[in-house]
Every structure is written in C-alpha cells, then in structure tokens.
C-alpha cells in the first residue's frame, strides 16, 4: 500500500492561507431551504418534549382533548359573527395560559400562519368588487363603471366596511382553528393523538398513513440535513445556481430511491411482526373523574358559543 500512494498525496502545500478575506460567501436560497428543512427535526423534538410536560391541558385525557378539538372546530366553522369568534379566541387563550404553554412561541406561529392563510388570502374579498357596501378606503377610480359577463366593476374600487367584517371573521376563524389545533399539538405527544383517533374509530388505513408519514418526515429531514453537511464539507466556495439546482435534482432522485427502499423495508418489518392491516392497541387507561368534569365544562362552553 505504501508504494501505491500517488506522488501528489506526498506533496503538502503551504499550511498558511495566502490571504484572508476575498469577500463573503452568500448563503443560497437552496442552503436556506435545506437548513429550514433540518429545522423540522428540531420542531419534532420540541413538540415531543413540550407535550410531555405537566399542566392543565397536558394532563387531560387525549380522547377528551380530541373530542373537544373536533367539537370546537365545528363551532368555529358554524359561527357567522365576530363576537362569538372573539370569545372563542380568548377562551383558547385562557386555556393556553392555564396550561403554561410558552405563549410567545405559541402565538408567533399562529399569528404568522393566520396572517398568511386568513388575512392575506381573504383580503381581496373586502373590495367592493366582491363584497358590496360602502367604500371606506378607495384605491382606484375608473373613468366609468364596467359590466361584462355578468360582473359589475364600479367606478370607484376600494375596501368596504362590510368587506372588512368578512375578512375579520375569516381571519378569526383561521386563528381560532390554528390556536385549538396547536394547543392540542403542544400538549399531547403525537402517538397519544393517534391512539385517541383509533379509539374514536378513525379508520386504521388513515392512521397508518399518518403515522408513517410523520415518521418519514423525520427520517428524511435527517437524511437531507446530513447530505447538506456532506456537500458543505467538500465545497471550497460558493456554488453557482445551476450547479445547486443540479445537485438538488440529483438528491431528490436519491431520496426517492431511498424512500422506496425504506417503504419496502418498513412494510416487510411490519409483516414480519404479524401486521395484518389492523392496528392493535394495548388497553387504554380509563378516563378519570377529573377528565369527565373538565370535558363536560369544555362541552358546555362550546355549546354556549354555538347557541350564542
């Protein structure tokens, strides 16, 4: 072996960098994307750790929580007024407070998603082109109104008071749905949610798909993060965009192959351990008196909102 070492490997170039600086390497959007993908792992661990704490909602039986979640999602979807939606918002806020959830972290995500999927998406509906009413904030004034294909474009286009009410209602609905879902996720370990759904007669196929998908996200987030590091360790500078895209395309193909192999292996392992298409759980603990009391209390609150 000693004699086979190529001469260039025996040649050690200068140990000192000829110069320092040379400008900064900018982080590409692909690097940023991969880094945030790797953040999924952190989120997963955080969720698991947070959900295993103690606190008001943490200690509640998962079945009660899941029923409460489904019931409140229905209530939130049924209400057509802003006031009850605000009431639900503050009720969930109070529950989060009682559960000692990290409120800053909790509401930061909710408001960001609520802003994008609630406010921004519904904002165009507050224009008088869609929701008729008195224009409060005009934005464009046309020379004359237009009518075509059954649509009426008024002379002054702007935001209406009625439109704002619709946007506020939709945004609140999204915020409330997110808050209640995040509250459950923050206070319940993921396997417990699956068990509760099983007890509530959600089909096994659906649960197997959710569980495996959840597991795969972590496996592949780890693979992607590791691949990113492996590439970084061999990069001596910035990569141009087309090379970066080629790398990503190649890696997607690799992940696809790896996914297929992993799927086959996991399924074989499941079959090997006697899986026949039905999820079987060991006996679930009994619902305690405290859980019934809290569950009833939450049910009454939900009913009041539904009735209000």
């Amino acid at each position, binding site marked *: 072996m000693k004699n086979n070492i190529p001469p260039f490997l025996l040649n050690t170039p200068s140990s000192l960098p000829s110069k320092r600086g040379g400008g900064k390497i900018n982080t590409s959007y692909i690097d940023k994307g991969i880094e945030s993908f790797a953040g999924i792992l952190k989120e997963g661990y955080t969720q698991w750790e947070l959900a295993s704490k103690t606190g008001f909602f943490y200690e509640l039986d998962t079945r009660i929580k899941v029923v409460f979640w489904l019931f409140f999602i229905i209530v939130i979807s049924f209400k057509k007024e802003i006031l009850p939606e605000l009431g639900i918002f503050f009720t969930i806020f109070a529950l989060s407070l009682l559960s000692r959830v990290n409120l800053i972290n909790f509401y930061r995500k909710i408001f960001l998603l609520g802003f994008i999927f609630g406010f921004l998406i519904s904002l165009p509906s507050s224009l008088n082109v869609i929701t008729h009413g008195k224009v409060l904030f005009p934005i464009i004034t046309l020379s004359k109104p237009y009518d075509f294909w059954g649509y009426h474009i008024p002379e002054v286009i702007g935001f209406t008071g009625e439109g704002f009410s619709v946007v506020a209602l939709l945004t609140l609905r999204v915020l409330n749905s997110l808050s209640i879902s995040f509250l459950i996720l923050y206070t319940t370990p993921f396997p417990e949610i699956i068990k509760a759904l099983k007890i509530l007669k959600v089909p096994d196929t659906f649960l197997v798909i959710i569980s495996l998908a959840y597991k795969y996200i972590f496996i592949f987030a780890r693979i992607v993060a590791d691949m990113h590091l492996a590439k970084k*360790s061999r990069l001596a500078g910035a990569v141009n965009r087309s090379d970066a895209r080629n790398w990503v395309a190649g890696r997607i193909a690799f992940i696809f192959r790896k996914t297929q192999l992993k799927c086959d292996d996991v399924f074989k392992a499941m079959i090997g351990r006697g899986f026949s298409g039905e999820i079987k759980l060991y006996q679930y603990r009994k619902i305690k008196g405290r859980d019934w009391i809290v569950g009833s209390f939450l049910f009454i609150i939900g009913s009041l909102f539904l009735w209000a």
Partner: protein
Amino acid sequence: MEIIKVEGVHYNYYNRFPALIDLSLEINRGEKFAVIGSNGSGKSTLLQILNGLLFPSQGRVFFHTYELSERSLKEKDFVRFFREKVGFVFQDSDIQLFCPTVIDELLFGPLQLGLEKNEALERAVEIMQMLKIENLKDRPSYMLSGGEKRRVAIGSILTMNPEVLLLDEPTSGLDPKTQVFLLELILALNEAGKTIVIATHDLSLVDELQSKVAVLSEEHRIEKIGSAEEILRDEDLLLKVNLIHEHVHYHGQTAHTHIHSHYLFHRH
C-alpha cells in the same frame, strides 16, 4: 506542532440535548488521533465541529492559528484554504456520494479547488489505481457495494489532497478484507504525512493504529487522553465508558465469563 486545538467546547442539539461538554484537546501535525466512546457519546459531533460543519455553543476551535467560526467559514479565501486542508469521510457513504458517477465524484473536489481539468483527472486516475476502483469509474454510486462506496468516499476526499483526514467510523459495516485494506491505507497515508483523526468504538482499530486516544464518556466529556497502549490497558476506564463489558463465550464445551474486550485481550 499542533494543527487542531479545541478549547472548552460545548455543543447541544436543538439547544436541549448535550452532545459535548467542556471538551479540550490538541492534535499535532502528522499524528494519528482516535476519539473513542460508546454510541451517542458525541464522537461524530466532535468530528463535524473539527470540520467546521457545526459550531460550538461555547468554546473555540482552531485550525493552525485560525479560529473556525461561522464568520471565518464565510470568507471565500479561508473556506477554500480550510476545505482543501481538511477532508471529512462520513460514516454513511450514501449521503456523501452525490455525483452521477464515481469519476465525477472523484473530480468534484479538485475542480472545486480550481485545479485544471487535466490535473484533476490525473489525480482521480491515480486515486482509483491506489484504491483499486478503476473498474467502477463510470458506475453510479447507488450501484456500488458498501465497501466500494466507502472506497469511493475516501477517494473523493483524497483527490483534494487534504492535510488532515477526519474519518467517522471508517471500518464499520465492512467485511474483514476491506477493513484490512482501509487500515493499511490509513497507516500509509499517515506515513505520507497526513494527520489522521478517527472516531470509532472499535478498540481493535485503535490497537492496530497505535494512535493517541481521547476517550469520551457517556456524559459527553473527555475522560482521558493518552497513548493507545495506556488507554487499552485501563480496563476500569473502558468499563466505565461502556467500551468493554462482561461477556460469556465458549471454548469447546466450556463456557466462561470475561470482563474485557474480545478483540484486544482475547484476540479471537
């Protein structure tokens, strides 16, 4: 003369789980250095920190006299210098091989360093001859066996002619013949002047390499640094860090129990 210096390094995964606690060590130029410890003790994390892929939450790491930091590794000149000098072979060769074919894999590093295509190709050919992988030249990495992948992964780093080689569990999962091949390669590279840093829990490898050894505990701290002989003789230390254990085995029909490593003391 020290080439790598680690001063009081702490690292936590997800800001929660400690992987390294108050770790300090020095690695000299041309040295063989092994980091040993049980699974999850932080060996791979340490190697990734030495390669500037992760950055410590506390403490500092130096390569020669230059501090490795997120800031310094964003400087174009320094990145080029550092990546040329320090090569990292990952434990999982699958994640390291990302080019379409073996030859592309071997050319990736030298072309990154700005070498002429001819020179890069010359290096790749020489490395393929040394590693006996010429026949795999045009094969995609997913059509290689585990041992072939490991050879290609090492080759892809060697074409960059690094001064320091970081090897994460280089012999794990390989057949005995490939293990011996890699061991001889590592020794030959060290004799050629390369600094070798290995993370492993394979005590027989440490014995064969006769390297300097840092022992990591399950509490993610350095328990001891010493010569291979000194560390491998310290049975209490190896028991404490879970690198050896009590085991039962048979001589013919007779079963007996040992409190030591199969490889080092028993040699069968």
